[in-house]
């Protein structure tokens, strides 16, 4: 009995095929338009902190180069580095000056260090004392005032409040 040969489809080993990329180009064009709309032209990149909900404002002013301070319900940070703890919307007693409870010791030390550092002190934002403050919208003014007071004492009186656009 002769064995039947298995059916093998005919394939051209050296053939090429054309991929239809029209739909992919369409998709990329839509993406490009969307990304161009949200393109940031600000000279300073502000990274929103995870645990901070910023207040919204009608202000449309872009940020300029400044020392970045963030104040959340848990911590006070200077350029992403935690410098003091916050508990129940207030600073811990050990971080505050005994005689002046508005004075945050670690913040003053850090800002003073920046103001006196050889590589920093000649920069325009340090000379002018510019600070960008990101603070949680639910924090009371009393907590913010301590940061403002200490920054002002350390020679950084130009405070700029970071806000979100729209509601």
């Amino acid at each position: 009995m002769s064995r039947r040969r298995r059916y093998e489809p005919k394939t051209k080993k050296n053939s090429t095929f054309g991929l239809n990329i029209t739909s992919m180009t369409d998709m990329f064009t839509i993406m490009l338009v969307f990304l161009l709309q949200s393109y940031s032209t600000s000279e300073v990149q502000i990274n929103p902190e995870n645990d901070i909900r910023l207040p919204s404002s009608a202000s449309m002013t872009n940020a300029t180069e400044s020392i970045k301070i963030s104040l959340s319900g848990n911590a006070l940070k200077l350029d992403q580095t935690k410098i003091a703890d916050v508990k129940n919307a207030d600073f811990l007693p050990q971080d505050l000056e005994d005689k002046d409870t508005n004075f945050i010791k670690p913040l003053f030390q850090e800002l003073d260090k920046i103001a006196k550092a050889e590589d920093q002190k000649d920069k325009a934002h340090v000379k002018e004392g510019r600070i960008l403050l990101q603070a949680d919208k639910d924090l009371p003014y009393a907590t913010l005032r301590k940061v403002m007071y200490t920054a002002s004492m350390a020679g950084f009186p130009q405070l700029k409040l970071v806000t979100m656009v729209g509601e």
Partner: protein
Amino acid sequence: MRRARKIQVDHNSEFELDLAPLLAVMVKLVPVLLVSSAFVQMMVIETELPQVVNEAIQRQEDQKTPTNVALEVDPQAIRIVITEKGQEKVETIAMKDGVYDLQGLHNKLVDIKKAHPEVFKIELNPDGKVPYDVIVKIMDEARQARDAKVKFPVFDTKQGKNVETNYMFPEIVFANTMEG
């Protein structure tokens, strides 16, 4: 004489556009734009102003007894304290349904600005318990007139005439920051 050869054009022929180079450019552009896109737009509140308004603020500071406008915000109400020629006038904006009446505050500030167009600076004295969010909203109400039709006169020294601006009190000072 030889006749010119006529090139035959097939008007019904189809051709495929080569989209591959276009796609290659897009594939490179998309990651670049993704990195530099700001999906959360963040702005700052500050006092960078047009030159005319800046000069007007300077003139206000040069006055010996300038009119002073202060906002006192406490958990119950907002008080506007206007000090003019040594006399103090207080206007209170009570809360409406448990929230600050920001529209009422804005209307009052527009009236004050109309009466005192030379004043650009406002002092803000919030109580320690007032949330930061409320303070930012109050600053928004004071900075500019919401209605684009409402304009205030400012004297431009360069042009030697009055020009119009919708800035009301753009220079906001936290007056009680240094208080104990």
